[in-house]
């Protein structure tokens, strides 16, 4: 069984309390809203994708500490990165939180390794991945996405929340 205390670490509690890049961007180049119908949580992600790099990114919404901290840390992690680098990070984050890869096997994961413990909590995995899911939706011009969207490659059914 997971040690839940390891999930609610200082860094996650801090990002929950003082989320970075929280808010909206007036003229984003990419935008999506992510929704977790199992708990009603929703966040929106705005991205300004320049010629080469993510110039700006922001998120806002109503969500639990795991989701909000994940979104906050995601924005700090991908800001300044290329779209390809961000997409690699999305794949690594999803692989780690769904238990497919250990955090050691994710070369770019860095501080986001604090979310590794969520893989032992099937009902909370979706909280952690919702922001990443939404960023992926924004990149692919999917305006509204959901952790339950069947057509989405990230769809991973879990029980009723």
């Amino acid at each position, binding site marked *: 069984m997971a040690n839940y205390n390891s999930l609610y670490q200082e860094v996650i509690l801090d990002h929950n309390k003082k989320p970075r890049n929280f808010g909206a961007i007036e003229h984003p180049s990419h935008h999506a809203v992510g929704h977790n119908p199992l708990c009603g949580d929703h966040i929106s992600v705005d991205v300004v994708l320049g010629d080469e790099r993510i110039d700006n990114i922001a998120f806002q919404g109503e969500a639990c500490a*795991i989701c909000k901290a994940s979104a906050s840390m995601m924005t700090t992690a991908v800001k300044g990165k290329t779209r390809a680098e961000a997409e690699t990070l999305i794949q690594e984050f999803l692989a780690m939180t769904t238990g497919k890869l250990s955090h050691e096997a994710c070369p770019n994961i860095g501080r986001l390794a604090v979310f590794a413990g969520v893989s032992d909590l099937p009902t909370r995995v979706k909280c952690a991945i919702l922001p990443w899911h939404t960023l992926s939706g924004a990149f692919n011009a999917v305006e509204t996405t959901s952790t339950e969207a069947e057509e989405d490659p990230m769809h991973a059914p879990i029980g009723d929340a």
Partner: protein
Amino acid sequence: MSEIQAALKYNSPSTFDVDGIRADFPILKLTVNDKPLVYLDNAASSQMPQQVIDRLVCYQTTQHANINRAVHYLSEVATSEFEEARRKLQRFINANEEREVIFTSGTTDAINLVMHGYGRKFIGAGDEIILTTLEHHSNIVPWQMLAEEKGAKIRVVPINDAGELLIDEYEKLFNERTKFVGVMHVSNALGTINPIKEMIAFAHARGVPVLVDGAQAVPHMKVDVKDLDCDFYAFSGHKLCGPTGIGILYGRAELLEDMQPFKGGGDMILSVTFEKTIYNTIPHKFEAGTPPISAAIGLGAAVDYLSEIGMDAIAAYELDLLKHATEQINAMPGVRILGTAEHKAAVISFAVDGVHPHDIGTLLNQEGIAVRTGHHCAQPIMHRLHVPATSRASFAFYNSMDEVDALIAGIRTVQKIFT
């Protein structure tokens, strides 16, 4: 145990032998995350006493065969035990006749049966169905499906901030197009006990039948369908210390007889040719296919168990638990109870300032405490109370006062982590 011993054991809340009762429930001995399990998710599903487990084992090891079919020994035993379970349920809810007790797969199935069997036959275009803001999705969605199919309209009884139905508004919703009322007896999300007897009398005075969703009432209080005078009453076995996959629809015999079958198949027919099928009499008309025989017999054993303790003693003891928990939570800064109706069952939905319910659920689980977090399949209430979700502690008669204290300590721990 003799009857006198039983009476002494479960006499009143002050003498309610919760330790003795807990000993009947093997699962309560579990530890979760190295802490004793504190199971406070009884509104979602209750636990099963050894007496019911033993009954299921006895059935499977010595009595199982298909029912209503063969002439051999086991089939006769199984049929007779299955019908005996129906009579136990009939007595438990004080129905007039055993044929008014239909085995379904649960409350949802029972409500869908009424929607298909009664609604599709008797509700048409322009007709109105009255529901309430408190309803579980299972008593909303089937009626929406019907309304869409028939062009009928759904009217909704509002609630006040305490989570009580506004009865004046309920009465104002009636008109000559009102054809049906669906109302829950006890709110799963807030614990409100609705004044259904008065609501039924008002509807009946206007010739309107009433379905009561009793999933959260039957496990916690004495329910007498004759006294309530309801037309339909639906509940589930697994919230009643019984198995999953079994539930009951009580229906007034004359209404059940007029209704069309819900599912077609074996057991629900008297004769079948490709030209014409003659349906069986009630209750069999509504029990197509092989029913969950062992689950029905297990549910019979569960209501025997509950009856021995006494539903009045259970209700009184649970009220003590509710009172103790409510007082303690009200004294905690930063914690708010959602649902403060004057008449409540032992359900406490609560919010902790600055902490999302899912984080509360995960952190309480760390302490071995099982609560439900989310919208409780009652999104209209969440919208009305302007919260996306709540945390909910729902009690049963096997919960102890110490477990209430464990919940309070757990909430304090959550608050400490988030400050």
